[in-house]
Structures are given as structure tokens and as C-alpha cells.
């Protein structure tokens, strides 16, 4: 697999440098991280994880979003010291909330970073995103992984922090956002880590993996390729089976591309998603179709629903800006 890189060991550094060029006024570079230049007197919001999912995580550092991101190697959690550096940088004395997907490696590293931060007197709370309903049954909710739902949690945490709320309040809201987010993904083709020759997994030309994770983690079943409407129906039904959405519920919807699946395909899926939600009497507050949480050149997509209440909706509507995510007032 051809990748446009220089030396494998430099990809993260060089990516960050290239990102900073896009908006030098807004961002500052850390060793393996990006933070907002302007330090705000509020609870700091930090996100991060393994690289390779761009624009996540660095593209979700911005106004009304995360204040900083700690970046690991491709598909590998950042180190505790990288995370600590971001924590120190985004803390204004009001504490820091770390938002990250529930993966063994991330938990180990963010936990250790939080311990180090606490030793420096920085209050640090962790919100784990566990939106991937395919990654474990409801009975093992604790085991569920985080995928594109990160976007919703970062957006709402950022908005809450901007309101000047206390760390406990921001944590409560972020946790609610995480609890209210459900996603389901499907993979059509494989992903290759830059510098490696072979993809991490393979799928036959007529095969898809329903529920596959964004690092190629196995999903619910390997099945035959099907029509967009059938696939979307199965995906939505998996979400509907996971939570009793009811008439009158209000949601934000993200149809997220994993890499090589085209915007056209995502829009075709989005059409069916909207139809199904409308049939159930669920109101769509906001609908986004984009590549936010990718997995290298993986083919496939995920559908995420964020269930809104009045509090979350008000925060969802607040403006936000990064070069990869804009919400106008």
C-alpha cells in the first residue's frame, strides 16, 4: 500500500506541522500534540488517542471544541507524558477533562497521565466514549469501544466548558453526551498502517464486516455485500434494538465515512437513515455527513445518533470552529 509519507517515524510530527500551517494563528504545537494558542479561563477539554483517524483528533481542537489533543502513533494510544504535556497546557487551574475512546491502550495511558497530573495538583477527570454498539452487548457496556461518537462528546464538552461551568458540571454533561451516543459501523475493505506493507485485515470482494471497529476489530458478523438500503436498515435496527428510541425523541445524526467510501455513498445511506428516523417519529435536530473519524483507507461507514434533551440541545447549538468542524450560531 502506497502512502505519501517520508520516514515512518516522522509521520506524526510532520502531520502536526502540516496541520499547524492550516491555521497558525489558532494552534500551537506540542511534542505529540496540538493545543489552542489562546488559553481560556475555563475547564480544559482534552481529547486524543491513536493517530490514523484524521481529522480526529487534532481536527477537533478548536473554539467550542477541545482545547488540545494528544496524539499517539497510528492506532496506538499516546504516551502518558504526551498526554500530560497537553493536560498541563490546557489547564487554567480549573481542571481538565479527558475525552477518549474506550480502548485498553488508551485507558492505560490516560490513567497514568491523570495520575501524573494529579501529582502536580491538576484535577483530571476522564470521560470514556463507548458508542460502538457492535463492540459488546449491552450487558457488557463497560467493554464497548469508542468510534465516531467522539465527535458529539467533544462538541458538547467544549460547549459546556465555554459556558464557564465547574469541572463537575462539565463532566456530568460530557458523560451524559457519551451515554446518549450510539454508533454502528460497517467495513467494506481493509486499512493499512503507514509503513507496513500489508493491510491489518482483508475482506473478500463480496464480503463486508458488520460492526467492525475502526482498527479492524471484528464486529458482529461477516456477511455478503448488500444494497445500501438493506445495509442501512440493518444498521439502524441494530441501533434501535440497543435503545428504546421513541416517537418525539430528538437526535443529531452523523453519517461518517471511514476513508475510501465516497461522499455519494454516504449521502445515499443518509437518505435512508432520515427516512427510517422519520418513520419512527424521531426528529432530526442536525444531520452531518462527513469523514470525521476515519480509519486509513478503510472502506465503510458508521452511523451515530446523539439523543438530545433540552440541556444538550442548547449546547449542541453553540458555535464551534476548527478547520474540520464548523458550527455556526
Amino acid at each position, binding site marked *: 500500500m502506497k502512502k505519501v509519507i517520508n520516514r515512518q*517515524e516522522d509521520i506524526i510530527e510532520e502531520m502536526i506541522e502540516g496541520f499547524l500551517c492550516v491555521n497558525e494563528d489558532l494552534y500551537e504545537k506540542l511534542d505529540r500534540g496540538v493545543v489552542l494558542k489562546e488559553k481560556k479561563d475555563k475547564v480544559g477539554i482534552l481529547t486524543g488517542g491513536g493517530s490514523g483517524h484524521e481529522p480526529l483528533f487534532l481536527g477537533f481542537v478548536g473554539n467550542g471544541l477541545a482545547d488540545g489533543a494528544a496524539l*499517539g502513533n497510528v492506532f496506538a*494510544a499516546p504516551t502518558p507524558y504526551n498526554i500530560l504535556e497537553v493536560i498541563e497546557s490546557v489547564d487554567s487551574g480549573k481542571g481538565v477533562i479527558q475525552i477518549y475512546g474506550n480502548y485498553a*491502550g488508551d485507558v492505560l495511558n490516560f490513567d497514568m497521565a491523570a495520575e501524573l497530573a494529579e501529582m502536580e495538583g491538576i484535577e483530571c477527570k476522564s470521560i470514556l466514549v463507548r458508542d460502538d454498539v457492535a463492540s*459488546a452487548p449491552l450487558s457488557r457496556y463497560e467493554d464497548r469501544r469508542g468510534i465516531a461518537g467522539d465527535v458529539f462528546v467533544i462538541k458538547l464538552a467544549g460547549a459546556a466548558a465555554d459556558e464557564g461551568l465547574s469541572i463537575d458540571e462539565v463532566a456530568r454533561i460530557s458523560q451524559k453526551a457519551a451515554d446518549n451516543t450510539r454508533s454502528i459501523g460497517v467495513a467494506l475493505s481493509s486499512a493499512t*498502517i503507514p509503513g*507496513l506493507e500489508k493491510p491489518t485485515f482483508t475482506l473478500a470482494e463480496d464480503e463486508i464486516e458488520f460492526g467492525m471497529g475502526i482498527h479492524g476489530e471484528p464486529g458482529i458478523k461477516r456477511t455478503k455485500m448488500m444494497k445500501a438500503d438493506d445495509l442501512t436498515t440493518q444498521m439502524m435496527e441494530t441501533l434501535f434494538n440497543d435503545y428504546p428510541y421513541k416517537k418525539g425523541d430528538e437526535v443529531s445524526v452523523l453519517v461518517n465515512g471511514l476513508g475510501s467510501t465516497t461522499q455519494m455513498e454516504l449521502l445515499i445511506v443518509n437518505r435512508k437513515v432520515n427516512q427510517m428516523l422519520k418513520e419512527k417519529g424521531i426528529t432530526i435536530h442536525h444531520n452531518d455527513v462527513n469523514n470525521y473519524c476515519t480509519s486509513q483507507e478503510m472502506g465503510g461507514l458508521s452511523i451515530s445518533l446523539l439523543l438530545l434533551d433540552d440541556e444538550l440541545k442548547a449546547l449542541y447549538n453553540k458555535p464551534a470552529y476548527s478547520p474540520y468542524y464548523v458550527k455556526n450560531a
Partner: protein
Amino acid sequence: MEHYLNIPQTVQMMKFVCQEVMDSKPLLTEIDSAIGDGDHGIGMEVGCKAALQELQRNEFSTINDIFTTTGKSMIKTMGGASGVIFGTMFLSGFHKQDEVTTLNVETLAKSFDTSLHAIKKRGKVQPGDKTMVDALVLAVEKLHQSAHQGAALKEGLENAVEGAHQGVEETKQLLGRVGRAKSLGERAIGHQDAGATSVWIIFKSMHQWLEENDK
């Protein structure tokens, strides 16, 4: 060779270990690709490269220094699950422990035992969860036995390699219960754990260094 290594020898051995692990990148990549996300080889390479640099750069006055430096390098540079886990493996057994200037079977047994407990706690894992712990636990057992029998370091390590290897083999039969193999269910059966393989490579290359430098 004596029944123990001095400081320069231990540094040489650890440098050799780092090099061997780095050379195993393709194998580790392949194994982690089968039931993980394929980055374990890259991670170990990054960590061992950093450790190697530190081992080359620094002067060491205790054995503890050598191992904690190795562990810290890994934690600082690797990331991923293995950064913390393998960092802990080298760090915890010698960090805040009695300082020693020679390395023998007892020291090795005792320190890796301490590390094992730290890893189990940090990683919230037990033997049987299909992780590097499955290899480490058997290696440590063998080291203890060897120490008990008054074995030489080389002999002790030979036993540890055997234990680690047995651990790797056992992971093939196990369902994953942490990390990314977890969601594979039955499909993980037949595949060995990547981290366990690294543990085996580490002990194997320690032993190999002793073999080759046994004069």
C-alpha cells in the same frame, strides 16, 4: 562466566535484547494483525529504539538504573497498551526496590515477579486473559524454581524462555478477554498473543546473549 552479570554486561545484554525485539518487527506485526490492530511490531520497535539510545548514552551505577531506564524509555515513547505494559515490566521490578549492582537469578525472579503484579494491577488482567501476562507468569515461575535450585543465570534464563514459550503456546487456546482480541470471540482461538510473543523474544534474547558471551 559467573552466576551473575555485572553492570556493563547487563547493559550489553539489554542492548542486545532491544536489537532482537526490533528485528522481530515483521513477526510481531503479523501476529498483531491476525487478532489485533497490527501495530505491536511498530510499537515495540519505537520503544526498543528509544531504550537502546538511552542504554548507549548513559552511564549506569546500578542494575536498577539499567532496567528502569529501559522501562521509562518505553513508557515515554511507545504509547499503545504495550507502552505502559512493557514499560511496567522493566520499570516496576527495579523502581523503588533495593539497589543492586549485579544481576543473578534471584534478582531476576524477584524483580519480574514484582513487575508481574504491577502489570496485573495496571492492566486489570489475570493469567488466562490471552495477554503477555500468560508468558510472563510462566517465565517468572521458572525463574523462581531456578533460583530455588541454585541455578546459574544462563540456566535460569533457559528455563524462563521455556516458560515464556509455553505461555505463548497457551495463549493460542485462549479467548481474548482484554484489548482488541476480546471482540474476536472464538475467532481468536489458534492465534498466539502478540505481547506474549514479545515476552518470549525478550527472554530468548537475554538467554542468547549469555550463550554467545559465555566465555
